[in-house]
């Protein structure tokens, strides 16, 4: 009996540790680096959740799926859709948050930023 109880505790511990390891400890999804239709667009959960106090349902109620990068599989995931109030454009309309057609490089980290974030090699042209 004692043995099985300790096994149970062990399993619980292992499960909770693995959950923390997967980033569930920080209560949000971290940085999302989109690579389509253009490479290098950063969505920061830290900025939106921690700094601006949004909760999960603010966006994950039909606007965005919980799965990372699911949005970029949509054929209309582009700037035009944002201007029409879809995706990020639901808030980034110049009223609730800065408009989607301003401050480009605040979200667009570019190929260079993307490669840095993912630890990829940038082709170096200079020998």
């Amino acid at each position, binding site marked *: 009996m004692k043995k099985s109880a300790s096994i149970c505790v062990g399993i619980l511990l292992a499960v909770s540790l693995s959950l923390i390891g997967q980033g569930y400890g920080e209560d949000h999804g971290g940085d999302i680096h989109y690579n389509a239709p*253009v*490479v*290098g667009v950063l969505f920061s959960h830290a900025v939106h959740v921690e700094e601006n106090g949004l909760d999960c349902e603010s966006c994950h109620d039909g606007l965005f799926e919980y799965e990372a990068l699911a949005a970029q599989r949509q054929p209309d995931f582009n700037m035009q859709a944002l201007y029409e109030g879809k995706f990020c454009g639901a808030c980034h309309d110049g009223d609730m948050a*800065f408009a989607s057609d301003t*401050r*480009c*490089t*605040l979200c*667009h*980290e*570019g*190929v*260079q*930023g993307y490669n840095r974030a993912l630890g990829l090699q940038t*082709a*170096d*042209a*200079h*020998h």
Partner: protein
Amino acid sequence: MKRILPDLQKMQNEGVENIPVEERRHFLKMGLTLTGVFASGTLFSMVSSARTAFASDPGFFEKYPYKPHYSMMVHLDRCIDCERCKKACAATNDVPSYGYRTNILEREFPEAIGVKTEFIPVLCNHCNLPQCTRVCPTKATYKNPENGIVMMNTTKCIGCLSCQMACPYNARYFHEEKMAVDKCSFCWESRLSKGEKLTACAEACPAGVRIFGDLSDPKDRVYKEVHQIEKTVWVLRPEAGTKPNVFYTRG
């Protein structure tokens, strides 16, 4: 640096009273250049009049040396470093992974409010007074007398890399397979000479950063954007005095 520092500290301050006027002038020019408001040689270059934005002598303003006078206007604040231009360029002009004909530089302003990053597309400026063609010992690189494009004759290139040293814009690399220096030619061989109107990079840009056109045609968008005073227009490294044909603006 460690070895030089004690020597520097031992030196006496020469003061500013002995600096020649010429030297002072250079220093002031440098300041104006850094603040990005300086394009030609007059006080009026605080704003971009046609003459100053063109970064050329009045003679060039009156009469453009080439027809068409190929030129590019870069809208800096629209660049998002997606690098579709680089991809399109490489595919169009046989550019290897170790080289580039056009590149995107990144500049950070950590203290700025709002946007903190600026991407700067760079390419050959097809200068009116190119230094690269001047130093080439074999005339392998030359300025096309009709359209003003700075071109390469790869069969003449001996790979001395003098042109690379002379270029203020770092726009040249050595193409190992061609055994010659390679550079942007405004897609002359691959596109313009075949009747296309745009370079591959300008066509591939999804954000309208690179506006390619004819600086000598008053109906052309590049002409209109260079010859106005509402928005500041500048060139990179005007102090090199090469009269570049790639212009930059924001907004």
